[in-house]
């Protein structure tokens, strides 16, 4: 009887499988009515053992393995790794190859941000914006496909350069595509900042103050929407970012709306830089020779992925296989900001806040072992056993 006064607390589990999540992750939100009072996160559902796998493959195989960490920003992973290995081997890649890498990276940023725009609109129940932004994203996907030969895993990099050149026809196609995208991006900017129903879902929601963003170590657009100047493209220019610099986009709104504005403005910035590069493409070879065995050394390679700073630590040991590769993806830095900002919000805002950092679960979980949830004596399977199981299963 006495307990009746205590309000009942609900725990809403979101995930591992949930319509709001495009990839598996698990969150538990304690709610009081509609208000969230607590949040915890659990990752690791798409843990694939990539860091360990890299230690058992040669440098070239690792390039493609690491590219598959993420299905959205595959090029930045390959670029960060290639830049790191080139540092280890003391190889300088030609400016033309660097410029092409940068074009692909910026096109990928456009693709990733537009994908995010659609996902965030979907979380807000704005299906029309979702459909339209994904329709227009096809343009940039087609450009990437025409340029590199694939829609998602471009594999534009090789160690020591790039595979694909930009021909004059492709340059024209890119410029045409960007013209269309610029127009559409202006339109989405207008929709996002003017539509009252959408503003009602974004303005003042998920506020992450400057101090919080600093102490929690947020990166990328999430940090920049809170006014924190953190952009590797400026801090530590790689590729040809020193010749073709981007302007940092800041917003001090700190809320979801600011994150929308920052990402869309970054699209304009990317588009501007791509135009500059394709018009002034440096001449030169596409690849330089890379040694197969890399002398013992250490290197750190940092790249600005669409979601923020991507950090690679590489250690070589003189053989053709790396000693250790550590990948720290931007999503992992931004997780803590979700858990902090979610508290005090309505449950309805949670999917938006989650989507606001543009989370990438595959990026957060990388390394180690293939496991099966089904019973059995050993729950840990080697790759060979799993393959055998797959063959048996489908026979």
């Amino acid at each position, binding site marked *: 009887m006495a307990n009746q006064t205590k309000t009942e607390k609900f725990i809403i589990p979101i995930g591992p499988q949930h319509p709001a999540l495009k990839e598996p992750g698990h969150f538990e939100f304690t709610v009081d009515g509609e208000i969230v009072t607590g949040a915890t996160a659990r990752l690791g559902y798409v843990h694939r053992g990539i860091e360990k796998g890299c230690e058992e493959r040669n440098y070239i195989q690792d390039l493609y393995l690491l590219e598959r960490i993420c299905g959205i920003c595959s090029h930045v992973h390959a670029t960060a790794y290639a830049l790191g290995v080139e540092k280890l081997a003391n190889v300088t890649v030609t400016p033309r190859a660097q410029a092409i890498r940068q074009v692909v990276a910026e096109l990928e940023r456009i693709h990733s941000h537009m994908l995010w725009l659609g996902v965030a609109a979907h979380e807000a129940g704005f299906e029309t914006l979702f459909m339209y932004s994904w329709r227009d994203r096809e343009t940039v996907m087609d450009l990437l496909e025409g340029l590199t030969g694939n829609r998602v895993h471009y594999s534009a990099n090789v160690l020591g350069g790039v595979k694909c050149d930009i021909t004059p026809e492709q340059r024209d196609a890119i410029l045409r595509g960007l013209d269309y995208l610029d127009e559409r991006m202006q339109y989405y900017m207008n929709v996002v900042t003017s539509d009252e129903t959408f503003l009602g879902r974004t303005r003042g929601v998920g506020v992450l103050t400057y101090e919080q963003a600093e102490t929690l170590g947020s990166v990328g657009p999430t940090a920049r929407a809170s006014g924190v100047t953190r952009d590797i493209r400026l801090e530590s220019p790689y590729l040809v970012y020193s010749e073709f610099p981007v302007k940092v986009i800041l917003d001090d709104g700190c809320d979801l709306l600011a994150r929308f504005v920052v990402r869309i403005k970054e699209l304009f910035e990317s588009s501007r830089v791509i135009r500059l590069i394709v018009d002034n493409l440096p001449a030169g070879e596409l690849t330089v020779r890379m040694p197969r065995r890399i002398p013992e050394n*250490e290197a750190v390679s940092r790249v600005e992925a669409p979601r923020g700073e991507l950090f690679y630590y590489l250690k070589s040991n003189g053989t053709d296989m790396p000693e250790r590769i550590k990948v*720290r993806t931007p999503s992992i830095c931004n997780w803590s900001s979700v858990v902090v900002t979610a508290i005090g919000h309505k449950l309805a805002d949670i999917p938006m806040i989650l989507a606001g950092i543009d989370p990438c679960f595959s990026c957060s979980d990388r390394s180690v*072992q293939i496991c099966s949830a089904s019973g*059995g004596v050993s729950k840990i399977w080697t790759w060979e056993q799993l393959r055998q199981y797959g063959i048996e299963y489908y026979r």
Partner: protein
Amino acid sequence: MDTQTAFQEVTDLLQPWARWTKQVQPNLLTVSISRAHLLPAVKALIDARWGYLSAITGLHLPLAAALAPAYDGPEPDPLITGGSFVVLYHFCNGDAVLNLRVHPPSIKDTRVPSICGLIPSATLYERELMEMFGIEVEGTPDTSHLLLPDEWPDGVYPLRKDYHGPAAPAQL
């Protein structure tokens, strides 16, 4: 601030604790400190607002490498078996990257202090160290599994060099 100035500044800053310092790459500086000095060193970096913590990397040096470490210093313990660990704290400041290198003496004694009290976001990296290498992080707030499954066996650390997956074939 250009890279060399930043390195000069951090070298001065860490002077009291540094055992050795080496510039490995134009933008990468390694400073080795003893684990007892980790917290004051990190505190000094934070107080001087020198960069931010970008990641923490664990390294497993197998026996031979551990006995002859890349850059010689007073450690490691000669009695080690099974190699030893190195923990690298990566701090980034503009283009400059500082690797704060802590080298626990042996595989038997892997304790390093937690820096979560100073940098709360380090918890994810410290949990990863504990899961993947079995490095004991003293005083870290959360010790639950982060990446590995809940039913993962105790004492099996996948990123150690002697780990190659279970040897015995599972019954299918």
